[in-house]
């Protein structure tokens, strides 16, 4: 039997990064006894290795919990824990479409941050009821009253009955549970016998089950054994397994209106599922699909190539599986003279890029070379044609190009007053134009128009480091504008390395070129000969460094027992070399391609 709709509450937990969403999810899971005490661990839902290592949420996660409320009813709560990092904003907005309310978590020692604002706007757009939750009240620096005021002033929502909690110690968690059932709405009443309409929220590849599809039933009922149809892609499948996450999979016989769960079928092709699609039954199905999602737009592009060309087929397979798991990541095949077959991939930001690359390397055991990340430039050709440039290596000869436009963003940065000077300088250095500077609740809020290409590489890292982590940052794409942009090439031992080519503003070219050459000098190991490293624009060298030849590499002692050891060492060295890519006579380690782009000051 599916759950009566008035006893269901669906909500997402949203917040600025690190304000305690996943820890709050832990407490809700724990207090309702959903997971046995002995199986509990911190940030239980952050199951991926990278999530645990970095201590952040990357994938939204769904859990169903049962809560016996004070009114005597037992409610079914479906919570979605969402990621906080700006790169994953799309994941948050998608999750919000599947639920009716949000817990807005705000760290009471930090206050409202850039993502807090961004999340509230998305929640309002999704018509959500919002319950503010002030977290970390156990910290001496917590100022719940001040932060509540700030929420009312800056965001304009009533915070008078915000829950005061510590997700860490458990203070106030029972109030949160009561607030969920009393203040968040039940899903709108829908007919369980109507034709099925379920929204495809997410899907991913599971090594044991194949493709798993996360759905929210809007109308009608889905049952195990049903034959279903995806209304947009047209794919037809049998429902082999139907269930809910608690958080491990638990089978159910059916899911009715308002319920969230998953199914698996014989879905082979990773391309056959599309988030935002509507699922209905094959017979007596619905006629019109639900409105779909706005697709995410990748903003950062780079080439990914297997270090070992033999891994290409494995890589294709892995990329397809990952793309299924992550709707906001795009890819298409690419070939490069130096790097062979690979893929040009699109990402939501640099963290997103790093995460995907990490997952490919770890989960699928493939060593990768990442080419310089780039944004999409608009080229206006002299013959009137307009082209999109995804890859700086494809930049045509300047004589054919009339002008180049680059994407600009509107960035919102919130920062304590004492760091404002550094932040303004950073924005200035990155060719930013100030649009606004105001104060909200004792913090400065700077709004800047910035070129996206100055932001994607390391802006966020720099911002965090100049403000000791106190600044927060959010952005959205604004449009394209013409500027004096040129292609800068990097030559290693007199050979151009396409993977390091980049578009730069002419005024910043010398500076970036010098920084790149200096970085590469440190990143490339010495060889048996000296290696010139140059940056050039249209054949004219603008910066140059020389990596001197290796002078010493010899084992001091080698006696009888060392013959074996040295031979093994030699094999290991050779294996290590496989992690590098050969450009002419020079071997460049794979990490160099991204590290070289990061600017230290």
């Amino acid at each position, binding site marked *: 039997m599916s759950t009566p709709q008035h006893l269901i509450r669906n909500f997402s937990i949203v917040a600025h990064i690190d304000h305690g969403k996943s820890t709050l999810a832990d407490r809700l899971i724990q207090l309702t006894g959903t997971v046995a005490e002995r199986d509990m661990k911190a940030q239980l839902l952050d199951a991926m290795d990278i999530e645990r290592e970095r201590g952040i949420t990357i994938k939204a996660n769904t859990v169903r919990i049962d809560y016996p409320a004070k009114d005597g009813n037992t409610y079914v709560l479906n919570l979605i824990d969402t990621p906080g990092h700006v790169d994953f904003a799309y994941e948050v907005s998608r999750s919000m479409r599947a639920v009716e309310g949000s817990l807005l978590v705000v760290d009471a020692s930090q206050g409202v941050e850039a993502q807090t604002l961004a999340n509230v706007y998305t929640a309002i757009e999704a018509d959500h009821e919002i319950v503010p939750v002030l977290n970390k009240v156990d910290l001496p620096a917590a100022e719940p009253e001040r932060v509540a005021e700030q929420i009312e002033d800056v965001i304009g929502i009533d915070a008078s009955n915000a829950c005061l909690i510590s997700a860490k110690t458990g203070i106030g968690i029972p109030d949160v549970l009561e607030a969920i059932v009393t203040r968040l709405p039940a899903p709108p009443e829908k007919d369980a016998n109507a034709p099925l309409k379920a929204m495809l929220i997410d899907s991913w590849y599971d090594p044991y089950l194949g493709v798993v599809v996360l759905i929210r039933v809007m109308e009608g009922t889905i049952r195990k054994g049903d034959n279903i149809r995806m209304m947009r892609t047209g794919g037809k499948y049998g429902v082999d397994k139907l269930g809910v996450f608690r958080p491990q999979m638990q089978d159910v016989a059916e899911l009715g209106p308002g319920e969230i769960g998953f199914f698996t079928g014989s879905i082979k092709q990773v391309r056959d599922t599309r988030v935002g699609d509507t699922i209905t039954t094959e017979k007596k199905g619905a006629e019109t699909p639900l409105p779909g999602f706005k697709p995410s737009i990748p903003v950062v592009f780079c080439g990914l190539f297997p270090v070992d060309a033999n891994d290409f087929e494995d890589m294709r397979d892995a990329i397809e599986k990952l793309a299924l798991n992550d709707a906001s990541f795009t890819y298409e095949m690419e070939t490069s003279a130096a790097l062979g077959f690979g893929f040009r991939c699109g990402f939501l930001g640099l963290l997103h890029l790093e995460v995907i690359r990490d997952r490919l390397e770890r989960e699928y055991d493939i060593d990768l070379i990442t080419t310089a990340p780039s944004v999409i430039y608009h080229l206006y050709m002299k013959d009137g044609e307009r082209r999109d440039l995804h890859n700086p290596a494809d930049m045509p000869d300047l004589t054919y190009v009339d002008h180049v436009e680059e994407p600009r963003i509107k960035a919102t940065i919130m920062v304590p007053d004492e760091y404002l000077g550094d932040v303004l300088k950073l924005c200035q250095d990155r060719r930013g134009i100030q649009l606004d500077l105001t104060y909200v609740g004792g913090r400065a809020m700077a709004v800047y128009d910035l070129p996206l290409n100055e932001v994607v590489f390391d802006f966020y890292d720099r911002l965090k480091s100049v403000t000791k982590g106190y600044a927060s940052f959010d952005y959205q794409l604004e449009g394209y504008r013409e500027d004096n942009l040129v292609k800068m090439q990097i030559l290693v031992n007199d050979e151009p390395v396409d993977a390091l080519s980049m578009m730069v503003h002419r005024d910043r070219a010398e500076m970036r070129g010098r920084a790149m050459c200096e970085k590469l000098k440190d990143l490339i190991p010495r060889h048996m000969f000296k290696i010139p490293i140059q940056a050039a624009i249209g054949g004219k060298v603008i910066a140059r460094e020389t990596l001197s030849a290796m002078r*010493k*590499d010899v*084992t*001091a002692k080698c006696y009888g027992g060392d*013959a074996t050891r040295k031979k093994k060492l030699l094999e290991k060295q050779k294996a290590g*070399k496989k992690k590098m890519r050969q450009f002419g006579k020079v071997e460049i380690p794979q990490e160099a391609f991204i590290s070289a782009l990061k600017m230290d000051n």
Partner: protein
Amino acid sequence: MTQPENWQTGGFGLYVHWPFCEAKCPYCDFNSHVVASVDQRPWAEALAAEIRRYAEAVPGRVLTSIFFGGGTPSLMAPETVATVIGAARGSWTFANDIEITLEANPRSVEAARFEGYARAGVNRVSLGVQSLREDDLRKLGRLHDVKEAQAAFGIAREVFDRVSFDLIYARQGQNLRDWEEELGEALEMAVDHLSLYQLTVEPGTAFWDRAQKGRLKGLPTEDLGADMYELTQELCAGAGMPAYEVSNHAPAGSESRHNLVYWRYGDWIGVGPGAHGRFSVHNTRYETIAHRMPGVWLPAAQAGNGDLSRDVVPMEDQAIEYLIMGLRLSEGVDLERLHNMSRSVAPDAVIEELTRMGLLRISSHQLKATLEGRMVLNSVIEKLVP
């Protein structure tokens, strides 16, 4: 008896490993263990039994050298040394000019045993002096001071025909001038042989752990290390002690004959914990490795076989090993012998390229590393090995 693989050029040596030390030095990754006391009788007998076992496998040879290494062989009782030498004498014919070396720590307690070692047959010692600077000896965790080492060296010179000593340089905080001075003093002392090793931070040592935590400060950069090495070559050659191997210096004729067996890729038997051997029987070359832990090796040797493994060395591996060992020597490797082992190792095109770069040269069929080549030998070998 003709051999297609000419191991005889290298001679035939016996290596004996004594795995105990008074204290573990923080840079040391040798198979050495600190124990309260060692009952030497069973050890002497086990080592002797191992030698006799090998004599059955490799009979009828002329032994050109014996080397007692460690660990600290100067903790062996002279009787133990005598028993081992006796077992060797009973197993193989001794060459008239057999060289019998013992590695000794330069402390007074050990110098007191020198006479006994000489009576047992030892005719050469190699002293672990390591440094002629008090502070540095302490940093290296050594138990002796400079005076004590010099005294031990004096006694050794009186007792033995041939005396060598070891220094470790490129130490923490050492600059080029410091080393020039210290090496000058060493060359004043040295008589017939000197081993000069640049400090290597080896995995599994206390220095390594410190380095990982960023607490091993002041180690020389690659360039300073290279400058020190070049200076060492110059000063030693000027003093009549040119390098005959990467880290070993001697006037012609005073080289360590035993170590030449390894570098010329001859045959040697290894006995004692962790000892390695290489020897040829009926055109087949074997690699033997003894159990590493003393507590495992002793009962195994007593039960009749202390070895962990004995494997055939394939021809291509022999070529690689010969190259690794032989290019360390200033005399280089015999190209014909190398290419008889394998044609794919050291292909002509690569030799040519490295020669053009000034790293290798060929003279009268010997392939040699130049000074520049010897300084980057690991990379040179990596290029030569397919």
